[in-house]
């Protein structure tokens, strides 16, 4: 028996597939909620770079960033039913991504503070340049890489929440309100954590810079 619906169904599917790119976030979320894999793939295509940018703030090695991003998308898939379209999808996703990364960082644990004293030659040189006012930092890729390495060393010694607040505000230039929205913490909590992290980071660097100056003077004598 002739069934026109049987012919219409694949055609509708193909048309729908073509329209995913134009579909709104809310429509994609609704389709993904019903098990639409193509809709979820479109969400990943759309927000993959954003999730990677967030994960890159907390992890440096590619495999760690990818692992965190995968964890984020698996979480988004299981929690997509809770997105009702009240706020922006991107904000909802950023919040899940940030909190997933924070949990992964917590699981990884902190580095002992004494480990910061084991600096590489390049890091010592970077600090030496910082100490000598007349000798400005070169803005080469290598120098930025050394600075990022040293930053990571120092950040790993901080409590995870303090580190997150400091990185997002002082590193990425986000406002206290934005960090509060992303983490779900109160604004006063964000401020306190950032202040505490700033103090710790400054004190650790003061120690390193002082040690460096002392070593330099000893070398001159």
């Amino acid at each position: 028996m002739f069934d026109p619906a049987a012919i219409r169904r694949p055609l509708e599917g193909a048309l729908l597939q073509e329209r995913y790119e134009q579909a709104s976030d809310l429509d994609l979320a609704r389709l993904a909620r019903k098990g639409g894999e193509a809709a979820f793939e479109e969400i990943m295509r759309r927000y993959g770079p954003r999730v990677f940018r967030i994960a890159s703030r907390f992890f440096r090695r590619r495999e760690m960033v990818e692992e965190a991003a995968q964890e984020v998308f698996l979480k988004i898939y299981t929690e997509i039913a809770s997105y009702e379209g009240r706020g922006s999808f991107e904000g909802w996703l950023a919040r899940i991504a940030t909190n997933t990364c924070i949990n992964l960082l917590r699981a990884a644990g902190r580095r002992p503070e004494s480990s910061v004293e084991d600096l590489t030659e390049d890091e010592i040189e970077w600090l030496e340049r910082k100490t000598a006012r007349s000798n400005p930092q070169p803005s080469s890729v290598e120098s930025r890489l050394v600075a990022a390495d040293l930053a990571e060393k120092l950040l790993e010694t901080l409590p995870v929440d303090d580190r997150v607040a400091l990185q997002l505000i002082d590193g990425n230039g986000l406002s206290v309100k934005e960090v509060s929205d992303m983490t779900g913490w109160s604004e006063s909590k964000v401020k306190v954590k950032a202040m505490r992290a700033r103090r710790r980071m400054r004190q650790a660097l003061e120690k390193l810079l002082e040690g460096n100056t002392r070593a330099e003077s000893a070398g001159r004598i």
Partner: protein
Amino acid sequence: MKEAHIINLLEERPAPEWDERERAMIEIHIADCADCRRAYRAAMAAADLLGARANETIEPSPFFNARVMAALREKQSPAASTLAAMWKAARALIVSMAAAVALLVGLTLWISGSQSQPLETAESENIYSAEWVILENGDPDDLTYGEIMTTLYEVVAYGEDK
């Protein structure tokens, strides 16, 4: 304001948020205060380090989406969920079996412990059993009065039972 230390200001907000007045105040203060100068230099170094770290971004690899979709399918597949359910059920069974075995071992030890004491006592009380008299003692002429009485008592009791 020259006397007021600037450390609180360094910790309160990040450097890009300081206004012109605050920057001028910092410059004047650090010219005379060595402690604050050191703190200021460290704060500036921290800002540079954090900026360098923030610029690092890793892009998704070409196979990333496929990998996530594969992980999703694996998570949702009936085989995986059946295996998970089986493991869940088996885990409960293993735990209950282990508990039963532990209980049995405990009971066995407890029972054997409580029974061994009276057996030893019985043996010590009844050292002149008929078997002992016949097998261990050999010559009936060497028996004591107690041994003879015990043996006789058992024989009589055995005869009555019969």
